[in-house]
């Protein structure tokens, strides 16, 4: 899902019928907040390409992966990305 798609579909349901509702957009900081399963999640836009891989947490895009970061952060980012891919997989089954 891209940033634009996220904004274009403020309400959607996944395969399990869980409702995702976009609640806030902050154009000044490039972030958005959506509500899913009774919890709020923040999505941040990174760079010009707004490729959103992960909705449950901070957005990680390909451009950001090329940036040299400490190993701990890479490990954390990989974990978050895996969770996001799993979530996307459930959406594609819909």
């Amino acid at each position, binding site marked *: 899902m891209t940033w634009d798609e996220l904004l274009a579909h*403020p*309400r959607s349901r996944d395969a399990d019928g869980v409702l995702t*509702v*976009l*609640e*806030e*957009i*902050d*154009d*000044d900081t490039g*972030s958005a*907040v959506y*509500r899913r399963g009774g919890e*709020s999640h*923040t999505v941040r836009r990174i760079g010009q390409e707004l490729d959103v891989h992960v909705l449950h947490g901070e957005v990680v895009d390909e451009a950001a992966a090329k940036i040299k970061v400490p190993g701990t952060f890479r490990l954390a980012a990989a974990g978050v990305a895996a969770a996001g891919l799993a979530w996307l997989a459930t959406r594609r089954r819909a």
Partner: protein
Amino acid sequence: MKPAPFEYVAVDSWEAAVAALTDDAQVLAGGQSLVPLLNRRLLRPTRLVDINGIPGLIRRTDGVLRIGATVRQAALERSVVAEHWPLLRQALRHVGHPATRSRGTVGGSVAHADPRAELVCALTALDARYETTERVVEGPPVLAPRELLVRIELPPLPPGAHTAFVEHARTRGDFADAAAAVVLAPHHAAIAIFAAGRAARRAPAAERALRDGATVAEAAALAAELVDGDHPRALVAEVTRRALVQAGHA
């Protein structure tokens, strides 16, 4: 009691909502005010237009906050973006209860036009502009038939602003007898009050006095002059005094 029979129409756009409105239709948003009136049969619309399918968004662009009319009060209360306007959360804490705020909408509070609405008082102090399906107005709009409130727009707060909202209600969560919303910043003062069944309004004399260096007591007394009756006047003076103190006025 249960409502009298009505036709139910659900829409997902403002254009469809306007098209669905008839002369004796009512608009259903959060339903926290409308449904009790329907159940008691104080209102008997022939058609109910449900606008819950219209997405409501809180959005900040170039420092200006835009709040969709269908945004839930609870969503605005927990909003990260709206933290830059703390008066909203300070006022929303007094609006009903968490259960009603989870369904009640921001636009519903404005459109229902109850003179004791805390949120409208806060919006008045924040210089809110209101966009309807037909126009843009500076103060809370009196909606014409087949006119709907679409969004509310708030300018950025002045640098260094402090805000406070104080009300007096006989029961927590009930409508207040009097309330004051205050925004204080260097060279800026905004006070909005309501009491005695009269809708929220600004207190320009008190605001001017504050900018000229008036004390809390002097400004509160000027704000209280806007209402009639000894008791409402005393209430307004006290809630205004407390709000000014909470906002950091010496």
